């Protein structure tokens, strides 16, 4: 999955993503951490890109960035040229972000998703808990639903295809994995991801000035237990 040495990404592709949006796709087929690190710089709140007066939004994706511009203030071709130029000069900053520790009440009941993954992979439930809780994850980006952090760094042996059809109403606080990624559900939502356990860390709260607990570039570690009942 998250192959930190994968720098094969070719020249970025910029496509129209709307009548006032451009998508810069800097990745290849697989996730590249170095590419993502450059995108964190390009899309950071204090970046030169964000400072342009016609930039309305910068949405980080996984190895890509969506730029929403004011079409009454800039032409699509000017916006495209500026975006490419700033991408070409953007560099990755080695150390950004903070580290979050997330206590998890893992589901060892034997009839949940964790047990099903054990069945499929041949790992024991304890091995799954150990693998999941001993890795260090990075927040690639926030998106899809409010406050959802795409966490990269899931150990290869835990990679689990998403369910063919999503289940309705997975609860807020569910600690989940899907494909090569991990996450914590910020709201109760339909999801095709697998639930390993629950946490009481509130990753999304509209009462906070910044509702999202995690930001791109942050590190996340999961630890066993310590969740208030």
């Amino acid at each position, binding site marked *: 999955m998250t192959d930190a040495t994968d720098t094969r990404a070719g020249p970025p592709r910029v496509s129209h993503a709307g009548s006032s949006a451009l998508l810069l796709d800097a990745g290849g087929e697989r996730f590249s951490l170095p590419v993502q690190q450059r995108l964190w710089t390009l899309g950071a709140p204090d970046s030169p890109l964000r400072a342009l007066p016609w930039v309305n939004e910068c949405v980080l*994706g996984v190895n890509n960035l*969506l730029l*929403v511009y004011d079409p*009454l203030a800039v*032409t699509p071709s000017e916006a495209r040229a500026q975006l490419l130029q700033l991408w070409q000069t953007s560099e990755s900053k080695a150390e950004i972000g903070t580290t979050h520790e997330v206590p998890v009440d893992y589901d060892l009941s034997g009839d949940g998703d964790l047990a099903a993954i054990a069945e499929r992979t041949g790992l024991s439930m304890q091995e799954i808990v150990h693998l999941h809780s001993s890795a260090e994850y990075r927040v690639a*980006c926030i998106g899809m639903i409010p406050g959802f952090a795409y966490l990269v760094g899931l150990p290869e042996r835990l990679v689990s295809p998403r369910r063919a059809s999503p289940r309705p109403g997975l609860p807020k606080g569910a600690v989940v994995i899907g494909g090569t990624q991990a996450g914590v559900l910020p709201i109760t939502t339909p999801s095709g991801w697998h639930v390993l356990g629950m946490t009481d860390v509130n990753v999304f709260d509209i009462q906070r000035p910044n509702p999202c607990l995690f930001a791109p570039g942050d590190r996340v570690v999961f630890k066993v237990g310590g969740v208030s009942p």
Partner: protein
Amino acid sequence: MSSTTLEIRSSGALNVVQDLGRAGWLSQGISNAGAMDAGALRIANAMAGNEAGCAAIEISLFPFRAQLLADATLAWAGADSTAAIDGMAHPPWWSTRVRSGQTITIAPPRRGARVYLACSGGIDVPLVMGSRSTDLKGGYGGLQGRGLKRGDVLASGTAPEGDHHSFGVLLAERQGYFAELDGGEVTLRAIAAAEYGAFTAEAQTAFEQTAYTVTSEANRTGYRLDGAPLALRQRLELLSHGIVPGTVQVPPNGQPIIQLADANTCGGYPKIAIVIDADLWRVAQAPVGTRLRFVLIDAEAATQALHAHEREHQRLLGNVARWRRAP
């Protein structure tokens, strides 16, 4: 200052408080939300004497009924719906003074899908992340993050004193659109998206040459369409990327989905095209069963369309403001 103004007398979980949306939060996974037909909201607000960004009620379940708890100027725009005030019929796209105790009933549209009911002073619900728009998926904004139901009481902001004559607007653009709906078919301008070239030649032809019907799975999140399946030349695995309202995604079954105001901020399905911003209202007002035809234009033409749309809108808003002062 705000005071209670309206009591909702009909239930409709899909009738929601909306303003122009929650701009600037996409990078936190927060959908824009906001009025599906922003132009109609802006005109309803102008007719009610409000700023363009005031919150109003987006009605998509009819008949809608509400009783006034205080005198107010009401204005409605959007779909082709008659509004009755204590049984007295008023045309669509109309504004009038309504007295405390009177009841307004908005009938099911003859044509179109959504009506915006604005109230002088604007609907006053708490600002959440800079907007009063309801986000049903996130469960915040609007009235307690949910649709309106019978017995809900809404407040409105303080309205400037003004003349209280009744008037309406009749827009050539909207009349043309309603005529298209009469024929059951609506044309949408779109720009080719990143994966357009990854679709087969047959799919590219079908997308522009055949109609796609709005299915019953059509709401503020998006419209699922039904038509000639759109196949890729080969399977594509895309990493998650930001999307905006108007994006036409094609999941593995080949039937396109237009993502709309409440769409997830990121997606992973291949995108064939994006409906231009100037035509999003045409999607918003297309009821289930409408046949949609896509016409691809380039980005410069889309920008010109937006400029023209905005100029026309500003001219109209100016006319409304002048008419309110001196009919």
